[in-house]
């Protein structure tokens, strides 16, 4: 039944890892794209992710429905985003500092309210087996795709289309590129940015629900280990393009699976080095694509880090 695949195990494990691990990266980075395109940075998404994981797990356990958990996580995430957006709408408030405060608040609240939910077992989100055509069990396991991954992929395309060819997308982009131009058009930048941050928070909350309700599939205080922060960095890596966010998330998921996969086929020396692969990759790509002469391509003009 079990077959020995030799070195083929590595690409299969990376494919599986890409599908399993990428979803939280994808949702958080999509949420951050939405927020940053409107001209704000929300560094607090790590806290939103952890709180989303906790609230999603808690509601799923209490209601018996994993989807109710996802909705609750999205709702909780949007509240965090809304709070960030409202505070940042006050004059002379720094969005990065508020983001860090929101990150600590989100994690602290999640740990506090999450205590009673570490032990119980909540229902899992369903997944669809796309590997039925294969009789290799490893491939079948790798192609067990969660519904949220598919929703995330669809959302990436939808956001890309929204920014490109809809009025809403245009409004967000105008606000993000020039506050003055937006005001001249009769838009209210603060309101639009707050709404964009709230929507971004909802995305991050869903990413958290994926962590606690599907993979790894349980709530614990160490569940995120910095994935929310990495996803914020992914947005710069992906140059504020939702489709690129999707590929970046896939890349990070696959790179994360590299370490365990190599050990499982017997390449066991230097695993600490393999675990650093995603970060080395990021550094490499950022250095390769950077330029001292021009601003970052695709960066919204009103973003506080690029101004």
């Amino acid at each position: 039944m079990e077959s020995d695949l030799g070195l083929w195990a590595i690409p299969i494990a990376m494919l599986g890892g890409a599908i399993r691990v990428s979803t939280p990266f994808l949702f958080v980075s999509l949420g951050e794209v939405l927020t940053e395109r409107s001209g704000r940075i929300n560094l607090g998404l790590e806290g939103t992710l952890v709180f989303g994981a906790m609230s999603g797990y808690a509601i799923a356990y209490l209601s018996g429905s994993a989807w109710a958990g996802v909705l609750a996580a999205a709702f909780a995430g949007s509240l965090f985003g809304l709070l960030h957006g409202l505070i940042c709408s006050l004059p002379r408030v720094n969005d990065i500092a508020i983001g860090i405060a929101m990150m600590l608040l989100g994690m602290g609240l999640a740990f506090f309210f999450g205590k009673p939910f570490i032990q119980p077992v909540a229902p899992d989100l369903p997944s669809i087996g796309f590997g039925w055509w294969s009789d290799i069990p490893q491939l079948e396991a790798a192609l067990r795709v969660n519904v949220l991954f598919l929703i995330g992929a669809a959302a990436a395309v939808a956001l890309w289309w929204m920014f490109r060819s809809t009025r809403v997308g245009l409004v967000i982009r105008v606000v993000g590129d020039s506050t003055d131009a937006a005001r001249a058009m009769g838009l209210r930048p603060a309101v639009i940015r707050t709404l964009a941050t709230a929507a971004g928070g909802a995305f991050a909350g869903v990413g958290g629900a994926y962590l606690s309700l599907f993979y790894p599939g349980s709530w614990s205080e160490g569940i995120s280990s910095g994935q929310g922060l990495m996803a914020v960095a992914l947005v710069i890596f992906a140059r504020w393009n939702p489709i690129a966010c999707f590929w970046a998330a896939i890349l990070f998921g696959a790179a994360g699976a590299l370490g365990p996969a190599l050990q499982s086929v017997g390449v066991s020396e230097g695993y600490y080095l393999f675990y650093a692969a995603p970060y080395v990759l990021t550094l490499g790509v950022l250095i390769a694509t950077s330029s001292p002469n021009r601003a970052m391509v695709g960066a919204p003009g009103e973003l506080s880090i690029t101004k």
Partner: protein
Amino acid sequence: MTMPPFARRRFLQGSAALAGATALGALPSMAAGEMTVGFIYVGPKDDFGYNQAHAEGAAAVKAMAGVTVVEEENVAETIDVQNTMESMINFDGATLLFPTSFGYFDPHVLAVAPKYPDVRFEHAAGLWTEGMPTNVGSYFGYIGLGQYLNGIVAGHMTQTKRLGFVAAKPIPQVLQNINSFLLGARQVDPAITCQVIFTGEWSLAVKEAEATNALADAGCDVITCHVDGPKVVIETAAGRDCFVCGYHANQAPLAPEKYLTGAEWNWPGVYTRMVQTMLDGGTISNFDRGGLAEGYIKMSPLGPAVTDAARNQFDATQAEMMKGGFAAYQGPLMDNNGNQILAEGEVFLETDIALESMDYLVEGVIGSTS
């Protein structure tokens, strides 16, 4: 090493104590037969794992008459733990501390202990040696024996003859558990191998899940682990239709059908005994160890899938261990790089201190320590 806020705090406290002592004659002293005990955990104390096992011990101490327990969780193995220990001593009046994580010992416990000669520091898993502060003690259980028993059951239940082990860091305790697990299984069938994957950290949920999936992909059909919270590994492995052996605490509720047995700590008995010794004015040994017979560790009840053959050998070996002086490591024994560990006829008894500085994986383990 600088620690300005706490050096200042200690200075203030010291001078206040001096003033108080002259004015009132004595400083906050507890009534006879009363004491405050501090427990410090590296993670959450309900993690289905290492910290939960210690917290169960703390709960038993809390139930003792005349004892107050203070606890702090999620304390990092950094200067943080020194601050926590000092505040437990200075503000809560703790006279017995249990900093329970491996990394707390050196340098943190060893740095704080000389400043408080009247406080007793009891550290789990550390290796106290002559020359270290005498108010420091290290205690631990021979949990490798539990992994050996896990291995015996696993050896009976595996179809593929490949076992899987998700390990955190290549420290002696972890290596000993991996080796013992395989040696137990090889009592059943010498052809069995054990694949190990190191995650590099005590608690990394996603990486532990990935490691478990990689083991299942590699054909391992019985999986165990040594990470702080085994919940993710147990649930993921059971989800991949693998059998699981537990560690630290009883994880049977997480996978009732797939759970075979588990190596558990039995801290309530150990901690209440130590606290009682202190209350009675006695001294705790600086170096305290014990196994199954001494009640330091215990095994989870065997799961429903365990066959009769496995149960019989499990029971027989456990009975052998209860007599004391069990030797899981018997020569001839090689490591997985071909170096000889034990020659024909040589053994490591369970009490052998050489086991606590283990830096190799035995032949049959697929993996590397660095």
